[in-house]
Structures are given as structure tokens and as C-alpha cells.
């Protein structure tokens, strides 16, 4: 209950932040402009519209998640409002979890808003609602959930500026998981070892990059539902690891 109360307060606070609202408005505007590539053939227009729409949601989601995640705990410490919270019968883990859930709810609201506009634009242009696009938006959300957990973990010991670059850098490296995966079979033992460590220890954001299959659904996986379920489970498990680490670090931290 305490966790949910903290989460609700965090959500309300985040939705009042102008920077996040501006990002949302810009993203929605860019999605709405998607049909302006109508000078291409219908199939090409559809591909470009979907790829650009999913890209905008990803980039906007990335910025919103990082900006929200790096600030939720440090802001409370800077303003000293954390003392008020922790002086009450609130466990530190409840605080961390509440902040994470509040941040996650913020990201959910933002991505849902962009997703609704995106699906609306597709429906307006093509008169049908491809299920793959709903999957794409959902996968972006789970990707951002993992990213948010990482930002929360770093925020327990790093400053917001350091956290921003660290989270962004790990996101970029994590997106190149297909590269690290291919290097795990490299002949050079040092490269192979490093690639294996990177591939299995760093969060693999590249797992969620399935725009290819979503935009070109004729290119089928053997079992897409299982693949998506495995990805969601991966995101939940890794997020849990990061949150547990955050709890351990924050528990020892002097505020």
C-alpha cells in the first residue's frame, strides 16, 4: 500500500514535468505527420510510416524513460523531501519500488498516448489495424521498463548527469546484441570471452528490435508468440535483478 502511494505520488509529479510533456507533444506531432510520405508507392508508404512511427515512439520513450529514471530518487534527496518520507514507517525497499512503479506508470501513459495516435494514423491511412503494430508498441514499453530499472539502479549511487550518459551508453551497447552474439563464436579467445561476458551480463535491448518482423509480417518466425513471451519474461527478470541491486545499494546509502 505504501509502495502504491509512493508510486501514485511519483506519477502525478512526473506528469507535471514540462520537459516530459513537451517530448510527448513533439513525438505525437511527428507521428501525425507520418502520412506525408504518400508520394511513395502504397507498400513503400506503409513500410516507411510504420518504421518511422515505431522509431519516434522508441526515441521519445527512451528520452522520457531516462529523464524520468535519473531524477526520481536524486530529486527527492536534493530537495530533502526524502527525509520526510523515510521518517515515516516506510522501508527503503518500498521507496525504491514505489519510485520505480511510479516512473513505469509515467512511461506507460506516455507510450500509450503515442501508441494510440500511431495506431490511429495507420488505421486512417490503411483502414485496418495490424496486430503487429500493437505488438511493436508493447515491445517498446517492455524495453523501456528494463531501461527504467537500469536508470533507477544507477540513480541509487550516481549523479543524474553521470547516470544519463551511463544509461544511454549501455542502451546503445545493449542494442548491438546481435553483434556481441556473433562475436561469441569468434576464433580469438579474448574477443570470444569479452563478447560472451558482454552478451550475457549486459541487458540486451537488441532483443526487442523486431521492427523487421513487425513491418514485414510475411517474414515469419517459427513461433512469434513464444518469442514475444520469452522477451517479456527476460525484461521482467532483468528488471527484477536491477531493482534488487538498487534496493541493496540504497539500503546502505547515506542520505
Amino acid at each position, binding site marked *: 500500500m505504501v509502495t502504491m502511494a509512493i508510486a501514485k505520488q511519483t506519477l502525478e509529479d512526473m506528469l507535471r514535468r514540462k520537459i516530459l510533456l513537451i517530448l510527448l507533444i513533439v513525438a505525437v506531432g511527428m507521428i501525425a505527420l507520418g502520412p506525408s510520405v504518400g508520394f*511513395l508507392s502504397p507498400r513503400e508508404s506503409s513500410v516507411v510510416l510504420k518504421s518511422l512511427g515505431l522509431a519516434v515512439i522508441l526515441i521519445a520513450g527512451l528520452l522520457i524513460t531516462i529523464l524520468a529514471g535519473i531524477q526520481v530518487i536524486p530529486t527527492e534527496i536534493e530537495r530533502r523531501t526524502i527525509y520526510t518520507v523515510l521518517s515515516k514507517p516506510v522501508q527503503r525497499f518500498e521507496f525504491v519500488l514505489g519510485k520505480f512503479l511510479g516512473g513505469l506508470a509515467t512511461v506507460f501513459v506516455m507510450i500509450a498516448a503515442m501508441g494510440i495516435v500511431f495506431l490511429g494514423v495507420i488505421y486512417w491511412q490503411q483502414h485496418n489495424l495490424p496486430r503487429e503494430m500493437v505488438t511493436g508498441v508493447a515491445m517498446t514499453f517492455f524495453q523501456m521498463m528494463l531501461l527504467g530499472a537500469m536508470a533507477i539502479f544507477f540513480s541509487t549511487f550516481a549523479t543524474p548527469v553521470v547516470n544519463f550518459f551511463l544509461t544511454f551508453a549501455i542502451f546503445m551497447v545493449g542494442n548491438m546484441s546481435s553483434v556481441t*552474439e556473433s562475436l561469441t563464436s569468434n576464433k580469438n579467445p579474448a574477443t570470444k570471452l569479452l563478447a560472451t561476458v558482454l552478451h550475457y551480463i549486459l541487458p540486451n535491448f537488441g532483443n526487442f528490435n523486431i521492427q*523487421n518482423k513487425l513491418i514485414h509480417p510475411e517474414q515469419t518466425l517459427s513461433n512469434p508468440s513464444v518469442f514475444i513471451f520469452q522477451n517479456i519474461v527476460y525484461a521482467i527478470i532483468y528488471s527484477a535483478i536491477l531493482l534488487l541491486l538498487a534496493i541493496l545499494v540504497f539500503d546502505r546509502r547515506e542520505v
Partner: protein
Amino acid sequence: MKQQTRSAILAAIVVLALGQGFIQHVLDPQIREIHKGEKTALAGLSNEFILGPMLGLQQAVAGALWVRADEFFHEGDYDAILPMVRMVTWLDPHQLDVYITGAWHLSYNFTDSNERSDRRYIPAAQRLLEEGYENNKTLYDIPFELGWENTDKIKDYDRAETWFRVASAAKSSDAGPGTLADSPMFTWHQLAHSLERQARIDEAADIWRKVLGLTEARLAKNPTDFSTKNVRDSERHNLELLLKRKFSRYTHEIDFELDAKRTTGINPQTGEPTPKDSFTSTDPKEGPVGQPRPPAVTKPWNTAFNTVPLEQIGKPRATTTITFDKPKVMDIKGLFSVGDGARVAIRLHDADWYEPTLKDFTFDIDQSQTIMQDALSVRSRTWGRKIDMSRDPKMYSFSKDAANDPKLKKLSDAERKKIADYYLVLWFDPRGTSPFIQDKFGWSGEGMTDPGYLWVVKSNKPGIKPDNRIIRKVYRLRHAQIMGIEKVTEDDVIPNAEYDRIQEDMAAKHRATVSTNEP
């Protein structure tokens, strides 16, 4: 936090870490399947596009690049499009239209001042499409395009047939993304046409009968479907026309003008019209009045092909009607006794040229290579044109010159003069000509004869595809002749058998270096 709680949390972290490692291991093969065909294209991207792929936005960057490429196309900057085609297909190997449009650019849009295609790009176009097929085997679009290019541009009806078969067996997503239906009927229609082009008439007729059956079954379920009715009518018309032509050319010649007034129908297996007097003679010049006319191809037609002035035909050391009054400007004329509308194909190419099969797609071409190809219309039994290649030095470099090649300095002048720098090939293939000319000659030139240049091209599928009778005349040329320094004479003509041997040697050399890209 109590120490016990910390320990429990650490233990949970270890267990979860092992769990996520296991799930990652399970995901890896599926992710490899998803990204099959993609390549990291970062090195070729400009700054504003590099961040995209690094954030996992390959498809969005590919889309943005393709929009940019479309702008270049409308500005006429065709050279700028090619690297973008490469980049987009690396980033998103499932954008079918990029492969198809890119191949079309390569095959059709690089031209000389007279809009003759630069044929050096055709192997690249084929390889691009083949790469597209390797990454998109489910759908018909790319194999159909391969079939079409082989029909329209390359005139290789064998390969066209192979690709149309692949296309007709593939699926279609034309109804919308995610929907997979059977390939459209026109893939089958083109398959039938490609078989007809190879003079495999019975097989072509079987395809028409098959698709007609499928269309009629579809129409029976939905009798008011206008587009299916149109398709049915078109298929029926094509089948009847094919059978009529076969009957007329090889059984009894049909008068197609009278036919429309006298015929009530045709036998769907043999093409024999009813009533039978549709193919009986009404003119004593054709044969006994009232008797069935003989097959059209049994009346031998002397095409009298030549590139020698009329007054010199049959004389020793005759001059030719091929002159280079200025360097690289060829004025060529000839005689060909066929109906207006036939076309004489002409190709001037390096002596060591053979159309390569590329292992990997590249739009880099050998700039020192020269190949010019055109088709000249016959009017009132004559054909000819002035072909000015001097205005396009990049396309027509004519860099081969054995007489001045330092690597050949050990040879005498006489020996060097025997070395061909170029071949000028003039030919007429009845298989690619208009139907009304084929009505006289047959699909394989059976009704055609020529005192000088008739050549039988042996079938590569004996028993399946008949031999083909073509008209061909080949000149061996030297650099000095192209530059107008020396004249082209009939002494430069080489026998067709010799030219075939040369081409076979080139083909063998080429086969030794690359593997085939057939499906």
C-alpha cells in the same frame, strides 16, 4: 536491513541472473533468424543517420534513406541512388520495392545520349534481385521481376521461365501486410508466355488450360466478380490464339482475316477451327481451291539478309554497308526480306566480353568495357541507322587495341591484325519477333531460309525445347576500323560456328570463377 534478508536478496539475484542468461540463450537463435540478411552499414552512413542503427532503428533509417533516394530520382541524379539502394537493403533486407526499383534503375535508366541502356549494369541488377530473393523467399514479387528482366531486357526465356515458376509457386501479400495468398494469376500468364517464347507450345497451352480452370472455378463461386471475368476472358483468348497459331503454322494455314467471319469456334486441344472450311484455300495461288492449305512454315521464305551493297552481292572482296566515317560513329545499313516491323538486333562488344554472373552485388562496373546493343526496325525490306557512340565516351571507351598494345609487341603487325578487338553481331531471332512475322516463320524459324546466314542454335533441353533457326552475321573488328582509319570489309566476317566457339570458351572461363545463382 538484516543480514539474512541481504543474503536472501543476493541469492535471488544470482538465481534470476542465471534465469536471464538461460532465456537469452534461448532467444539468440530466433534473433539471428530475425536479423538474417541485415548488415551493419554504419561505415557508409552520413552523420545524421549513424545514431539510428545504433539505437536499433535500422528500419526507420532505411525508410528515411529511401525517401531521400526518391528525391534524387526526381532530380535525375541516378548515380546517387545506387549507394542508397545498397545501404537501405543492408539495413532492411525485406523492403521489396527497394530491390525492385534499384534493379530497374540499373537495367533501364543508365543510358547513352540516344537512350540505349548501359548493359554493363545488367549483371548488377540481376544480382541485386537475386540477393533480394534470398532474403525474401516467401513472396512472388522479386522472382517475378527477375523473370520480367530476363524476358524484356536480356531475352533469356529459359531463365525467365525458371523465375516465373518460382514466382507462381510463391505467395502474395498484395491484399495487405500479414496476409498471404496464392501468387496472382499474371505470374502464371508470364510463365505461359515464357514457354511460348521457347517454342514449347504444348506446355504453354497446358499452363493456359490450368489457369483457365482455376479462374473458372473462382468465377463459379462468385459469378458477378468483374475482374475475375476479365481474367477468364483474357486467358481464354490467349489459349485460343496460341492454339490457332499452332494449327495455322504447323497443320493448315488459317486466313486470320476470313477466320473472324467464318469461324464459330476452335477445338480446345488442337486449335482446329470449326467449320473446317476456315482453313481451306479460296485462291488458286495458295493451292487447289477448296482443299486445306498447307502449313504456313512449309512455304520457305528467303530472308536474303545482307550488309553488302546490292550490286556487290556475290562478288569477291565486296565492300560492306557498315562504315565508320568518323571515329566511333557507325553508319550501318542492310537488307532483310521480311515484313515491316521485324527488328534486326545489333551488338558491338569487346572481343573478351562475356556477360558476367556476379557473386555479390556491386554497382561498380568495368569502365574499360564496351558493349553497345540496339534493335533496328525493318521498313520496306531495308534497315539501318547511324549510331553515334562518340558522344558517350564513358559508355563506349573502345579501349581494346591489340595493334598498339605494348603487351603484344612481340607479335608481328600481321599477327596483331588477326587479333579481334571487337565483334559486331547482327542477328534476327524468330522467337522474339512479332506474332504476325512468326505466323510465316514459325516459332523456331522453320519457315525461314537464307542463302548466307541461317544458323541453327542447338537446344539446351533436347526433347523438351526445339532447336532454333536464326539469322546471324558476325564481323571481327579492330580498333582502327572503329576509329575510321581502316574500312570494314566482308573479309572481316567470321563463320557463326567460330563465334559460337569463342563464346563457349568465354562461358567456360567464366564458369570456372563464379558459382551459379539459380534458385
